[in-house]
């Protein structure tokens, strides 16, 4: 990763958006304290979290090329500020649910990198004992509810988690991540109406990386300003610079407050960009997006953005950075070694976990 300080232009997406009326008063850039009032230690933790995701997934790509990971594998590279910013603002007893592009969120939530890599390798030591794979990371320890493969399918499930919190009069919340292309599917619509109608403490996070597979949002979505949808559900919607971890944290803190105090859901659009192909079988650029567009957006690599801010604040030396980066690489390597040396699930496990034999 190049670390020299660069000017940090807004991403094409952000510029495009600026021409439009903001869908919400509380959009990016209004955070008062520099870097959201975080301490240097907190900022290091954020950088570390993002670097771990990056280095871990670089190894996933390598493992996929070597055939150690199979099936569909969707990398999160470029979107790490969203997972890290979000997880840094919620509680351990809150719930997280996401789609198939789930490695980054799983790592940011604090799930064992070893168990995640082992799951990707299809090993008995994986988060699901090798039964789920890349698209289906689950971890009950951290209330990580998966890893779901049907676009939009998990959005009503998130509303159900919110329902259960309300049912128990808890003050947790549920965070639900999905891509911008999912806003066109029925499940999204039904879930948002229910969440607002019933006052459920759910934060719906649209990770708008501007493409659903090879389809640009302009070719799939009648109104590209997706947060406008929120009004149809009498819900607060907010559009956020997803490449700035502090903007993400700000938005999440407002939404979390709304969920815990007012018991109201929020729809957040995190504007971001996917630096890799849709999945390992998809070219990084050339088919549906140009190399120029990709490079333009890579200038706002969320890790560089954070690094530069810290660097300018004079709190991060090259040495510090390399130390953090080396740690991340070491964890990724350790995860690989652990997964690679773990056994395959034993044949008899084919038939377990179909049904449980417990009753209440």
């Amino acid at each position, binding site marked *: 990763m190049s670390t020299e300080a660069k000017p940090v232009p807004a991403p094409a997406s952000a510029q495009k958006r600026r021409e439009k009326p903001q869908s919400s008063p509380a959009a990016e850039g209004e955070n008062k304290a520099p870097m959201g009032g975080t301490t240097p230690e907190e900022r290091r933790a954020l950088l570390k979290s993002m670097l771990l995701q990056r280095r871990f997934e670089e190894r996933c790509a390598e493992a996929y090329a070597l055939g150690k990971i199979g099936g569909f594998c969707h990398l999160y590279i470029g979107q790490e500020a969203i997972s890290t910013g979000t997880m840094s603002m919620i509680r351990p007893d809150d719930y997280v649910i996401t789609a198939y592009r789930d490695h980054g969120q799983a790592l940011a939530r604090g799930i064992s990198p070893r168990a995640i890599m082992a799951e990707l390798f299809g090993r008995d030591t994986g988060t699901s004992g090798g039964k789920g794979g890349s698209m289906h990371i689950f971890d009950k320890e951290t209330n990580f509810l998966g890893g779901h493969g049907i676009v939009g399918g998990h*959005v009503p499930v998130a509303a159900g988690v919110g*329902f259960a919190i309300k049912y128990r009069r808890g003050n947790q919340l549920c965070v639900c991540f999905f891509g911008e292309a999912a806003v066109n599917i029925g*499940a999204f619509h039904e879930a948002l109406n*229910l969440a607002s109608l019933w006052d459920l403490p759910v934060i719906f996070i649209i990770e708008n990386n501007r493409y659903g597979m090879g389809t640009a949002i302009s070719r799939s979505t009648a109104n590209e300003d997706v947060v406008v949808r929120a009004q149809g559900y009498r819900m607060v919607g907010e559009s956020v610079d997803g490449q700035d971890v502090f903007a993400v944290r700000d938005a999440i803190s407002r939404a979390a407050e709304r969920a815990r105090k007012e018991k109201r859901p929020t729809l957040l659009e995190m504007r971001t960009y996917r630096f890799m192909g849709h999945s390992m079988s998809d070219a990084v650029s050339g088919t549906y997006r140009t190399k120029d567009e990709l490079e333009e957006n890579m200038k706002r690599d969320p890790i560089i953005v954070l690094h530069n801010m810290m660097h300018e604040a004079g709190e991060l030396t090259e040495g510090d950075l390399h130390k953090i980066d080396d740690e991340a690489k070491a964890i990724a390597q350790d995860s690989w070694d652990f997964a690679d040396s773990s056994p395959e699930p034993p044949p008899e496990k084919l038939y377990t976990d179909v049904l*449980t034999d417990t009753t*209440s």
Partner: protein
Amino acid sequence: MPVVTYRDALTQALREELQRDDRVFLMGEEVAQYNGAYKVSKGLLDEFGPMRIVDTPITELGFAGVGVGAAMVGLRPIVEFMTWNFALLALDQVVNAAAKMLYMSGGQYNMPMVFRGPNGAALQLSAQHSQAWESWLAHIPGLKVCTPGTPADAKGLLKAAIRDDNPVVFLEGEMLYNTKGEVPEGEHVVPIGVADVKREGGDCSIITHGKMVLVAMKIADDLAKEGINLDIVDLRTVRPIDVEAIAQSVQKTNRAVVLEEGWEICGMGAQVVDFIQRECFDDLDAPVLRVHQEDVPMPYAKNLERLAKPDAAKSIAAVKKVLYLD
């Protein structure tokens, strides 16, 4: 034993389980304020309040998903579909979420929930409102599927379904709600996966479930007058299927007719036939015959609908055929 309707037997089961475990709640269209489109949830809103008896908008996929989410974090949802015809819109949640969650999560998240409602045809509701889905649902590993045909089994199986930590599909019937039968009061739980021989006889086995149990009982009386004695095996649940009970009966009678409400191709009856020919190949004195809906969408006209449905006359004809009496 008190004689109650199939509807009231279900209401009893719901009330008792709602009282027994406060993690249990009922959600669906018109279940609360309206007391249920078919009044199965009558009185429950008053007793348990709006947080546990929950009216939903018309969003089958959405509220089925809400049930899935609630079950993942430890509640025990009962999701009512006004009819299973509409559940077609929610099958992604039933099949891709509820049925697979335990497996995909490597055993971490079980799904203690019930999807219930009337299945199959009523009277003149036409093509889109008259479909029987048990063969589709029985096809899916990760589900259990109950198809009670009597009030006692309706109560006992619903209680078992609600207590089960797996996703259970529970198929009722508009035409069954008003039928009456003896139902044990209080604790009466019927194990899922165990068939019930509703009548003993040596001449021909009738393998059936759900609504068609009543037809089987009726023709058994008629045929008894002709000296033909039927052995009626009520599967009660079609996933898992009690293959042993089927085999025992056919090994005794050497003949079988399978009755079901739905369509022929890949219907429940086909699977029962498959089990029979595998388990009882040398016992069979005649091919197993099936009675089912004609292979057409359900017509509205009263006369055509009558012709489309499986009935006593078709069932009697099938029995006589396997007995080579026609």
